[in-house]
């Protein structure tokens, strides 16, 4: 289509890479926030096109990956209830909870359905008045307007058998959390283009200023990502830390005010648990009390479910080995990422010598 193919132009991509190569003088660590951006980087091999000075760290922006173990367990508990039709985006079906996943429940007879849009659940609810239709409302700010609209319309149209299990997460608190970590190495961000389509980018300005990091709101096509990288490197090389917009064809500084208004009517900001990270203050949305009739957590009384997250949480890179004393292993990777498991028993004196955490394998020993 028009203005899509242009952003995949190979010759232009090479020009941008050459320009990055021309201006870069030292190594920089950049994080692309969105899973969608990670997907493009891996799909088009952009990480291998870029000069070696640039290290891309994959960010937390995949809603499937960051949904807490506890929330998956709640979803599984609800989906097993009689008379429930449990609706979800397809990519949540295989995400494991403590014991099983939604697909396993479906194979055992639970009515688990994949929907394209939360608003489709309203049709399912209208067509099945004797059933309780629950939608697994995961996602970042991009998805919040859709979920807010589904609740708003259910409330307005008197669809009482529709509820949502809210597991919404917000990008700025997650970025701040990364930047506050003593282990942080990220020096610049490719900001989340579609989150900012909804929210605008005002709220990133204090982050750039406080933590002295450039944040370039970036799109998802290969040209977008390369240009976003170029803009970030330009700032880093010039010692700047500003918010810039690489993606003005859909992102404005104020975002979509109509969508923000409805999101704020339906949701309020609250603490949220992130998978493998634990609770981050004010990092998610929860339903406002006015909509408690559509709050699945309350209706099915799963609020008591309190699954503990593993304690080690840190950024892992290609070639890292993660060594954990106990518990479950992380089996969800960012899109495009791969994870291999290796059990290590290599300590002379167990208590004194064994260390847990993340280790980088020396390149000469890394699998080719």
């Amino acid at each position, binding site marked *: *289509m*028009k*203005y*899509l193919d*242009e*952003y995949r132009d*190979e*010759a*232009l*991509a*090479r*020009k*941008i890479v*050459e*320009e990055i190569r*021309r201006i870069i003088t030292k190594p920089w660590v950049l994080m692309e926030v*969105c*899973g*969608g951006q990670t*997907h493009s980087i891996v*799909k*088009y*091999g952009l990480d291998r*096109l870029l*000069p070696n000075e640039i290290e891309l760290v994959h960010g937390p*922006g*995949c*809603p*499937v990956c960051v949904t807490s173990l506890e929330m998956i367990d709640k979803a599984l508990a609800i989906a097993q209830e009689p008379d429930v039709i449990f609706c979800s*985006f397809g*990519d949540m079906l295989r995400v494991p909870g403590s014991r099983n996943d939604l697909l396993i429940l479906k194979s055992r007879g639970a009515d688990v359905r994949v929907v*394209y*849009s*939360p*608003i*489709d659940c309203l049709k399912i609810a209208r067509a099945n008045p004797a059933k309780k239709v629950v939608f697994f409302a995961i*996602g970042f700010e*991009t*998805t919040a*307007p*859709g979920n807010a*609209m589904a609740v708003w*319309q259910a409330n307005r*149209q008197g669809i009482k058998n529709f509820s949502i299990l809210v597991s919404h997460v917000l990008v700025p608190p997650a970025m701040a959390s990364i930047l506050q970590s003593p282990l942080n190495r990220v020096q610049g961000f490719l900001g989340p283009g*579609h989150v900012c*389509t*909804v929210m605008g980018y005002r709220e990133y300005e204090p982050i750039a200023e406080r933590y002295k990091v450039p944040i370039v709101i970036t799109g*998802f096509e*290969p*040209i977008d990502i390369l*240009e976003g990288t170029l803009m970030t490197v330009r700032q880093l090389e010039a010692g700047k830390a500003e918010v810039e917009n690489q993606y*003005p*064809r*859909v*992102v404005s500084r104020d975002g*979509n005010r*109509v*969508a923000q208004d*409805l999101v704020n009517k339906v949701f309020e900001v609250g603490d949220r648990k992130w998978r493998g990270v634990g609770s981050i203050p004010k990092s998610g949305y929860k339903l406002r009390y006015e909509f408690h009739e559509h709050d699945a957590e309350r209706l099915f009384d799963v609020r008591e479910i309190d699954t503990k997250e593993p304690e080690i949480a840190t950024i892992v890179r290609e070639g890292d080995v993660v060594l954990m004393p106990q518990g479950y292993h992380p089996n969800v990777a960012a*899109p495009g990422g791969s994870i291999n498991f290796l059990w290590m028993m290599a300590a002379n004196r167990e208590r004194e010598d064994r260390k847990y955490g993340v280790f980088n394998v020396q390149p000469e020993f890394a699998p080719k």
Partner: protein
Amino acid sequence: MCLAIPGKLIETSTDANGVRMGKANFGGIVKQVCLEYTPEVEKGDYVLVHVGFALSKVDEAEAARTYQALERMEQLTELDIPDVADDGAAIEASVSINGKDLTDWTGRTGAPSSRVA
């Protein structure tokens, strides 16, 4: 579900419950789209759609401007001017970037495009 994709609006309507809806064409696949968040869009516009909701009109002028600005960079960075060798002759630019080929670029395989400087 993470992605939002641009589609061309081919129909707008209001459903039985008073919700503004439409149909968008995504490269041949036509899907229903809720237009409540984009009251300004009309049939023929490009919209950015996420989980069945149009979140933004894709500004065609802005898209074109961005693209042109990127194209202009070719001249700005003077990348098209060949380097000069010791004997004064122009060195033809290589078709590979530091030995990296582009085999996984949009699924195209083999040698990089001849358009590449």
